[in-house]
């Protein structure tokens, strides 16, 4: 009896120690994520500057609907999301399954090369792409030298081409990152499944569609959520690759929120209202993805 009491005390003590281990991390997330989020919600119902802010209900949210730049930014984020994320994830999947092939040599070399862009900072790669696609940049110079072009294309000065450059840059930067996750997932799939499928006469396309994709589903879901999240928060590329231009054609929501808060005369109420829209979009899309991921 006595010893039982003592061991219960011990397990209680351990349980308490467990809570102490969690405490700093939990407090930090509450203080740096949840608390500011609630303050942002409160702030989004106010307008004015500094101490003179007053409650104005849904004014900021109504204002957004008439704000052409915000609507453009929202459209741009979704444009990047719908075009870029599927291409990138499919490419990453294809590359990962190619690298998983037992016949392929120099795996480490290929993997390192394809992952290398992820070691570049977002600002750095944005600037590299800006320089490559500048009017007097490398791409134009080469295209003229080969004879494909007579006059340089103003890639970043035209709305459509500027968006294309941003999408290309994003694919370049993030494909390897997603590939690493798929490669890690593929390691948990017995390779003999592929060998058996090959003996049964399944083509590589069949193997990819019937084995790789279904078995990697949890990983695909994870990367889809991460990419959606990241795409809705694009900032560095919009600022440093195109500066949102031409005429806000490539601006993202985060970039516009930043400008509204720290470049124009600060309007924190309106900015936080916009940032809350980003939050709701991220949450809703993640929820939908998880639901569809569960079903299949």
């Amino acid at each position: 009896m006595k010893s039982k009491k003592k061991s219960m005390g011990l397990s209680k003590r351990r349980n308490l120690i467990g809570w102490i281990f969690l405490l700093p991390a939990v407090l930090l997330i509450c203080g740096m994520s949840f608390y500011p989020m609630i303050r942002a919600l409160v702030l989004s119902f106010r307008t004015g500057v500094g101490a003179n802010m007053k409650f104005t209900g849904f004014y900021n949210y109504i204002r957004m609907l008439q704000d052409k730049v915000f609507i453009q930014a929202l459209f741009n984020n979704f444009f990047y999301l719908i075009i870029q994320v599927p291409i990138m994830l499919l490419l990453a999947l294809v590359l990962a399954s190619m690298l998983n092939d037992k016949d392929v040599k120099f795996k480490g070399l290929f993997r390192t090369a394809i992952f290398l862009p992820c070691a570049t900072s977002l600002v750095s790669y944005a600037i590299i792409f800006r320089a490559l696609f500048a009017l007097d940049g490398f791409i134009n110079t080469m295209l003229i030298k080969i004879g494909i072009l007579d006059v340089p294309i103003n890639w970043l000065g035209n709305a459509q081409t500027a968006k294309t450059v941003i999408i290309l840059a994003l694919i370049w930067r993030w494909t390897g990152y997603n590939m690493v996750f798929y490669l890690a997932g593929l390691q948990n799939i017995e390779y003999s499944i592929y060998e058996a499928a090959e003996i049964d006469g399944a083509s590589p396309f069949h193997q990819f569609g019937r084995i790789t994709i279904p078995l990697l589903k949890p990983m695909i879901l994870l990367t889809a959520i991460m990419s959606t999240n990241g795409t809705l928060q694009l900032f560095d590329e919009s600022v440093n690759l195109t500066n949102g231009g031409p005429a806000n054609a490539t601006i993202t929501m985060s970039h516009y929120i930043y400008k509204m808060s720290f470049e124009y005369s600060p309007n924190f109420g309106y900015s936080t209202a916009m940032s809350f829209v980003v939050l709701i979009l991220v949450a809703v899309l993640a929820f939908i993805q998880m639901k569809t991921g569960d079903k299949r």
Partner: protein
Amino acid sequence: MRKLKRFLNYFVLTAVSLLSVFPLYWMAVSATNKSVDVIAGRLIPGTYLLENWKGLLQAQNVGSALINSFRNSIMLTLAGLLICSIAGYGFEIYHDKGKDTVMSILLLAMMVPFVATLIPLFQMFSKIGLLNSTLGFILPTISTPFLIMLFRQSARSFPHDIIEAARIDGLSEFGIFLRIFIPTMRSTYAAAMTIVFMNAWNNYLWPKVIMLSNEKITMPMMVANLLTGYVIDYGMVMLGVLVCTVPTVVIFSLLQKSFAEGITGAVK
């Protein structure tokens, strides 16, 4: 069929590898060339590196930006690894229902985009005097659900027998974590370190908001500043980009193997 597949694999992998490396190669080569040569499309290393370096030093305070970036990133890496790994360990080893609930609430924080907390954080930090400081830089991102999850998953493979044996040997609970868990989980720590250091080094939005003083700017901010002005000196700008890129590439290359192992262990 098999031969064709093999050929296709090598062809695609080689092409993608070249496309992945080329922009970085071009950047590194351009850092050693004169701006006019860069524009002319020169693709071999030149002899203008020193001049570009002098130009860069004249344009920006590279030394202080480097020191700031290293200080901020190292502090964030140390704090983040310690606090998130002990939390991940706590969640897994002292696992119960209450902690599961807390964990699922924390995971919700993954859905909170940084931009949604940006302005309240800026207001809070300016009120308590954390602008322009390393503490201000690191506080919002020390504890992240992603990192806690990573350590929690890897703690799953940590054998309970070892913990029992250590308890019998009289090691304290914190002692077990410090002396046994940390050394055993080296590859997870390496993976986490790579991720946190890179994110810290590359962070742009947050330092742009809080580092208002010119002496406090970080490397990405400094590189972005090089683009102001009408004529861009490509050689100098690319050298700036190169200096900003080298630390993360070095860290990644050194820890690449453990990085892959750590991620693999965590997703099992």
